[in-house]
Structures are given as structure tokens and as C-alpha cells.
């Protein structure tokens, strides 16, 4: 898009906003970026799978794996590949967990809230370090 095409939306934004609005836009943008940087972790080593806040499986992030978890709305597929993990659900309204895509940094989560399924990447020693590929309940 050429610079000229941005002029109209920019002018409308300037006309529509007060100095207080613009201050809030700036302050909230800085706050969101700071919060994101604060919560970003190092590369993860293992994946935890929760069903209704109950840990149902822990798996090393190395290698390739895939399995199904019984969600409230049906099966939710958890996949691990090349140090990253993702979940795939089919029946939730917005598919937020699926569209989150691959996650691989410590602390990152992907959740299907209506399904009650959440996966979380953890740092620290993986189950593989203890000669285990996975631990499930």
C-alpha cells in the first residue's frame, strides 16, 4: 500500500481521538509489549497436557509424537514435532487452540477452553533426561 493510502485512515483516527485517547493507546501498547516480553521463556524441553486443570500427560518435546485426549466436545489431537507442539480440535466454536499453531518456548500455552484441554511447554529437565519419553496418567 502506498503512503498516500494510509493518509485517510490516519486522518480519521486523529480526528476521532482525543489527546487522552492517544495517551491510552501508547501506554497500553507499551504495557502489552512489556507483558509479552516478561512472559516469554527460553526454548522448552517438555510438554504438559491438562484436562480440566488435571495433568494427564507429560511428554518430551524431542522427536515426533501424536495422541488423542478426550475433550468435553470430543477428541483433541496433541502433536509433537521438532521441539514444538500443537493441539488440533474440531468442534470448538473458534478453534483458538488449533489456530495458535506450534508452540515451543517455555511457558507458552495453547488451549481449547470449551474442550477443557490445555497444553503447556515447560523448561527444565525433560522426561527424556530420565530415560522416559512420556509420562501419562
Amino acid at each position: 500500500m502506498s503512503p498516500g493510502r494510509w493518509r485517510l485512515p490516519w486522518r480519521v483516527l486523529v480526528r476521532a481521538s482525543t489527546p487522552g485517547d492517544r495517551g491510552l493507546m501508547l501506554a497500553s501498547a507499551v504495557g502489552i509489549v512489556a507483558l509479552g516480553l516478561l512472559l516469554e521463556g527460553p526454548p522448552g524441553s517438555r510438554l504438559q497436557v491438562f484436562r480440566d486443570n488435571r495433568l494427564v500427560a507429560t511428554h518430551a518435546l524431542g522427536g515426533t509424537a501424536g495422541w488423542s485426549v478426550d475433550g468435553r466436545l470430543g477428541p483433541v489431537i496433541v502433536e509433537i514435532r521438532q521441539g514444538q507442539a500443537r493441539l488440533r480440535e474440531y468442534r470448538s466454536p473458534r478453534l483458538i487452540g488449533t489456530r495458535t499453531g506450534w508452540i515451543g518456548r517455555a511457558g507458552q500455552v495453547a488451549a481449547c477452553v470449551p474442550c477443557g484441554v490445555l497444553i503447556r511447554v515447560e523448561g527444565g529437565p525433560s522426561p527424556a533426561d530420565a530415560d522416559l519419553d512420556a509420562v501419562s496418567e
Partner: protein
Amino acid sequence: MIRPPRSRLEADLLAAHLAAAGVAAHVLEATLPGLGPWFKPGLANLFTLVAFFHLGWRTAVAVALIRVVAGSLTVGTFLSPTFFLSLSGALGAVAAMGVGGLLPLGLGPVGLSLLAALAHMSAQVVAAFFLILGHQGLFLALPWFLAGSWVTGIVNGVLAFLILERLAPNQASPP
């Protein structure tokens, strides 16, 4: 050009129109393909914001509640987890509008829309934590959700400003 309401009946009719528009936006958003995992247009809140500026906070609360209940009945999610997430988000948004309108920050439609969008998303994440998922890891995704809300809040604020200009010229300021 639409005149500002001159009577109680006219104000009620305008509130009903805004609630109906909110329900339509709610249903439309439920059927639209997603624009990204953390991104939802939030057009339904736009009409709550217009109600707040044009008819006051109480009417905005009514418009939000009608939109959530009628919208969820229409798309078949009434009393489901999705309904409670919508309800908590809508209540968070109108609470933020009420508080933001009282603060001496000189916030207009854009600022209040941004505040409402951020409150909407935060309330939904808190509700998801307490009512459904119960895992603290959910809060780690909050910056991504808030980034999406930041964009939609500003866009909807500009749209609300343009609607308010048509409804009542020179009245696009907190009631």
C-alpha cells in the same frame, strides 16, 4: 441524518435498534471465519459503545445483556461455556466504559473502546480460568489476546465515533 432522541420512547426505540444491531453483529461474528487465533473483530461491542455515549451507561448495560442473551439463543450457545465467556466479556466491557467515563482522562470513543476491548478480553480470560480451565498457564497467552484487542478496540472506537457523528453532531463525548 438521525436526530438525537427527544423522548423516552425515542430513546427506547434507539436502544432496541442498537441491541438488534448488536445481536446481528454477534451472529455474524459467530459465523465468520476467524482472522487469527487471538483476533476477533468485536463489532458487537461497537453498538454497546454507541449506546453508552448516546443514551448512557444503564442503557449500554441493557444493550450488552440483550445482545449476549439473544445472540447466544440465536447461534445455539445459550448457557454453554461460550455463553458465559461472552457474558463475562460484555460485563467487563461495560464496567470499563463506566469507570473510564468517570476518570478525568478526557477519553473519547476511541479511548473508551480501547479500554472496553482490553477489559472484555481480560474478563474472558479470568472467566475461562475460574469457570472452565482452571490452569494458570492460560494467563501466559494474555499478551497475545490483548494485542488483538488493542487493534480491534481502536478500529471499533473510530467506527463508533463516525456513527455518533451521524447520530448527534458534536456530542461524541462521555455522557
